[in-house]
């Protein structure tokens, strides 16, 4: 997978599509394309948080392994979105699992090199942090709505 081809992925992925060409070129140098089979793990709880994943295609389940209950899925992430932000606050470890439910393709960034790049290029850094914040907002909104159990049986008066 050449940098050129990676740049093309970044040009269409919603997370990076509206960055300028140079910024995408810089990012492409830190990235590689990865493929996952169904039930393969992208992220495992407890491991060092050292990557950032742009999901190109497929379906990824964010879940937690609960002793006695097995993996408990919390949310799924589809193509066009992204997984993992703990890498931003180094050093840290992943707090959840991310498992592919279908064959999944992702653009994977090395977190240490990405952090260095963002410190060097503060403008790019700010833009990425904004996008990450947006991502976190979306996940939080969804998590809150799921928590409300809107479709559940009506509560007693």
């Amino acid at each position, binding site marked *: 997978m050449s940098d050129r081809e990676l740049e093309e992925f970044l040009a269409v992925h919603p997370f990076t599509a509206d960055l300028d060409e140079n910024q995408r070129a810089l990012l492409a140098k830190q990235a590689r394309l990865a493929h996952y089979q169904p039930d393969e793990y992208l992220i495992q709880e407890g491991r060092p948080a050292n990557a950032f994943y742009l999901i190109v295609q497929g379906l990824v389940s964010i879940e937690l392994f609960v002793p006695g209950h097995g993996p408990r*899925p919390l949310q*799924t992430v589809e193509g066009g979105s992204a997984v993992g932000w703990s890498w931003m606050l180094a050093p840290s470890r992943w707090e959840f699992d991310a498992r592919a439910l279908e064959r999944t393709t992702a653009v994977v960034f090395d977190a240490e090199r990405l952090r260095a790049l963002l410190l060097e290029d503060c403008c790019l850094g700010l833009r990425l942090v904004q996008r990450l914040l947006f991502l976190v907002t979306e996940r939080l*909104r969804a998590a809150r*709505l*799921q928590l409300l*159990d*809107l*479709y*559940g*049986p009506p509560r007693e008066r």
Partner: protein
Amino acid sequence: MVKAAITTPAATNPFIPFPFVVMSRRRETRDTVTLRLRPLRNVRLLAQPGQFMMLSVIGVGEVPISVSGLPRRPGELEHTIRAVGSVTRHLVALRPGDYIGVRGPFGTSWPLQLAHGQDVLLIAGGLGFAPLRSALLSILRERWRYRQVIALYGARSPTDLLYRRDLSRWQQRPDLILRMTVDHPDQYWRGQVGVVPNLIRQVAAFFEPANTIAMICGPEIMMRFTIRELQKHGVPDEHIFLSLERNMQCAIGLCGHCQLGPFFLCKDGPVLPYSRLAPFSEIREF
């Protein structure tokens, strides 16, 4: 149970129900069933998708239930009912051959004609899929009248999904885009977990916001977040239609309970365009 036949005087009085008999009962989920009803006398109550009937269990009470299917023979009705109170608990326990009182049809219908030649987005949350199913069936019957047809459905959990046989068939259709999600998956679920507004972004490539009619039904919070997402994508307020729910007792605009601001939801609704509701949408407890 109303095992005995019901006889009513000719309904010149709008409060008197017509007698119907339960033809079939299909259990959808733990607390929800779909009943198909046939009139006892030669009476045709023709309901459009989006409209509702008042279903009576005589001696217990009467409740508004949207039509959730299309009649296979003229005069038949199909309703999906969830047990949440005394009347609906009785309705959910009815068996084929039992009798039921029916008044209607009442209310406004989904804007299917307005959607001719447009992209159609049907967005359902939980039991809100019931009134939208009749719209979807009607659309699929004349599929050629519409451009892109997209159905988005969010349920609480996989066991709460309604119309599972329909869903499997619809997933096979190349002329229908169907996306589903649940809030709380079980161990077998390999589909999406998350909220309905999230599904809109996934199908954004398939509809042209300026030429789309969106029809939404579900809990009010779900509809509110869905509307915001549609607005972000550029769907105009006049093309976003909601089906709303309020306490309805007479269904003919006389008892006053179903009012939402100036609207009697039994007459001016339950289907209303968001453009008419927008002035009141941010007012709590209005």
